[in-house]
């Protein structure tokens, strides 16, 4: 017992010493000497240079309307969550940072994210946000983050390939399978460019009433889940009408689609600027994802701004968050179409719903499944992906693969 305490003390002093040595960045002193200007840090990832430029413009607007606050923007280029978690442990976390809905429950449960309820005032109009999106950042009645935008999945189709094959844009899953088969030539061109991972398949997996996770435990070996995912595995192994990007030498389905190696892909908003920049000649259209058993479904991915609970500049941090996710800020942020507005009022004004390309994405918002569950989703999806891919490639039957993955996932959850 004594030794343990001593060791703990020693390690804590080592940690403190470490942070003291590395922590002399001096921004605390700066604010103290200036007295008036508060400097807050905002950390996020940089999706594209254009997007970063837009954010910088908005931050400039914010600074001019809030002369007492200065925002220092930091881009964490790789392994975002690892970096953020490490910095939070070291007490060097940013004041405001991006948080993906899928990582949110885990981080919220540690108490490192500040609940925002005391800051949210009536005029911020929290009800204006799309219900499923804001819900992903709420826990036990408290709101921990405000979604900065979102994207759903839509079916991107290659107009020329469909025309040449005389295929209509499929509406149901059966039509989709038939169309994919017709569009595959068996030599590098496939009907469906699939991403065999849970983040993209979650809504399909649950389409027949099974659940991927129940009470924070993996339950995807359920026969209903197996049945709903079986068609995708069959498309690859039996009908040879689907392939993953790696099989055609692409890194993701958007690239596969752009190179003309897939007639259909399920992609999100981020693919639109990419296709425009990389494959400007490509003629494509979008549609809502094919219905399964007469029911519509799609995934939604959302990221929010959250506040570090250890931040010493909470008032200023909230000023920033409320500006960025306020009606005015969100309108600017979504004006270029990098993300769809998570506020209903902004969405109505934006006209994205009438947009030919973005319309189907917007249409998916009300029935979308948000990519988030509970604290154990990272373990669940890691194990699912690991086994599903081998089944997709034909190494083992799907039910066996999912059973093995479920067992392993639950074992890891118990071991935690």
């Amino acid at each position, binding site marked *: 017992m004594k030794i*343990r305490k001593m060791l703990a003390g*020693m390690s804590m002093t080592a940690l403190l010493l470490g942070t003291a040595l590395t922590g002399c960045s001096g921004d605390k002193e700066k604010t103290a000497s200036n007295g008036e200007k508060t400097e807050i840090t905002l950390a996020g990832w940089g999706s594209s240079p254009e997007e970063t430029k837009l954010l910088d413009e908005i931050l400039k607007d914010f600074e001019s309307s809030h002369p007492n606050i200065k925002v220092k923007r930091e881009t964490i280029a790789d392994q975002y969550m690892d970096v953020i978690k*490490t910095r939070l442990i070291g007490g060097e976390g940013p004041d405001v940072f991006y948080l993906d809905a899928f990582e949110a429950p885990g981080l919220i449960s540690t108490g490192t994210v500040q609940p925002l309820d005391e800051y949210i005032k009536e005029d911020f109009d929290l009800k204006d946000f799309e219900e499923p999106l804001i819900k992903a950042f709420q826990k036990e009645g408290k709101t921990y983050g405000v979604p900065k935008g979102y994207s759903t999945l839509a079916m991107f189709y290659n107009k020329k390939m469909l025309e040449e094959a005389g295929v209509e844009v499929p509406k149901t899953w059966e039509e989709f399978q038939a169309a994919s088969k017709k569009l595959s030539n068996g030599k590098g061109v496939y009907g469906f460019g699939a991403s065999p991972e849970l983040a993209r398949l979650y809504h399909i997996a649950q389409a027949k009433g099974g659940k991927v996770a129940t009470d924070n435990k993996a339950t995807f070996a359920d026969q209903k889940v197996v049945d709903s995912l079986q068609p995708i595995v069959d498309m690859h192994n039996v009908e040879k009408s689907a392939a993953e990007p*790696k*099989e055609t030498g692409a890194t993701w389905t958007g690239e596969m689609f752009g190179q003309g190696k897939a007639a259909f892909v399920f992609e999100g908003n981020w693919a639109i600027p990419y296709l425009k920049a990389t494959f400007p000649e490509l003629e494509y259209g979008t549609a809502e994802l094919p219905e399964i058993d007469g029911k519509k479904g799609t995934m939604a991915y959302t990221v929010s701004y959250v506040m570090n609970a250890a931040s010493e500049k909470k008032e200023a941090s909230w000023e920033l968050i409320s500006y960025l996710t306020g009606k005015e800020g969100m309108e600017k942020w979504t004006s270029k179409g990098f993300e769809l507005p998570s506020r209903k009022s902004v969405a109505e004004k934006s006209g994205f719903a009438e947009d030919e390309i973005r319309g189907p994405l917007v249409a998916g918002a009300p029935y979308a499944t948000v990519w988030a569950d509970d604290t154990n989703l990272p373990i669940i999806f*890691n194990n699912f992906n690991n086994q599903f891919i081998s089944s997709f490639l034909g190494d083992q039957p799907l039910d066996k693969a999912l059973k093995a993955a479920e067992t392993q996932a639950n074992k890891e959850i118990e*071991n935690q």
Partner: protein
Amino acid sequence: MSNRNFSKAKAREAGQGYVFMSPTLLVLLLFIIGPILYAIFLAFHKVQLLGAADFQYVGFDNFTKIMNDEKAKMALWNTFKYVIIVVPVQTILALVLAATLNAGIKGQKFFRIIYFLPTLTSSAVLTLIFMWMYNQNGLFNKFLSIFGLPGYNWIGDPSIALNAIMMMNIWSTAPFYMVIYLAALQDIPESLYEAAELDGANVFQKFLFITVPNLRPVTSFVVIMGLIGTFQLFDQSYIFSGGSGGPNNSTLTVVLLIYQYAFKSMGTMGYAAAIAFALALVILIATLIQRKFSKEESLY
């Protein structure tokens, strides 16, 4: 009295010594001894570092957990396969390369530079270049198709992915050991070869019965360094699989698993530390076995 003076002087001298050493001692304590002690401490606790740091003493639980962790077994098996293939192949290849370069062929210096080049590239960059070549439409498959052979899904196929990393690693580390062998080859007395020639030995016999036995101490060094290096495989499989150890756990190595438990899932930092200790133990045992069999000192 004089005794006391003596001890005082000695103490002062020792004190001076420690003052001079203090920067090094501080660095050692802070960056080497400290972390090791902290890791030992972690290995016996269930740790949640994020938020209010929470340490819970669990004794040997973290170590017994390894026994029935399928993933840990898989990682160990992958690493074992990797070590057992890569270490002998890279050692033999390095030896053969060194011997041919030492034989006095034309343009020897040129080949020495060419052979050594892969070692100079950082392994991260190397991996990215290889991934590009392993691509479905990449260099490797194009090369195979010249001979009418079918291409592979090098990166995405679980049964091949680890082999792809093996090839990459052998190609990049063998030259490094080759240079060590080259230096050692210069030390073999020419008279031994002359004597063998008089006895009518041919090139292969000279290589097998003079070069190889004389290089035994160096071989021992190369194998031990190779063992440690391959057991610690991380960066290549990390970049290759995007950090997941996939496809289907086929590129999951022990160090990659430690990384995953330490940073990817919450509250398993202590378990990760326990696996790290288990790995250290495995490397220690492997090295001891190697030393036992090689008997490097027996030559001199």
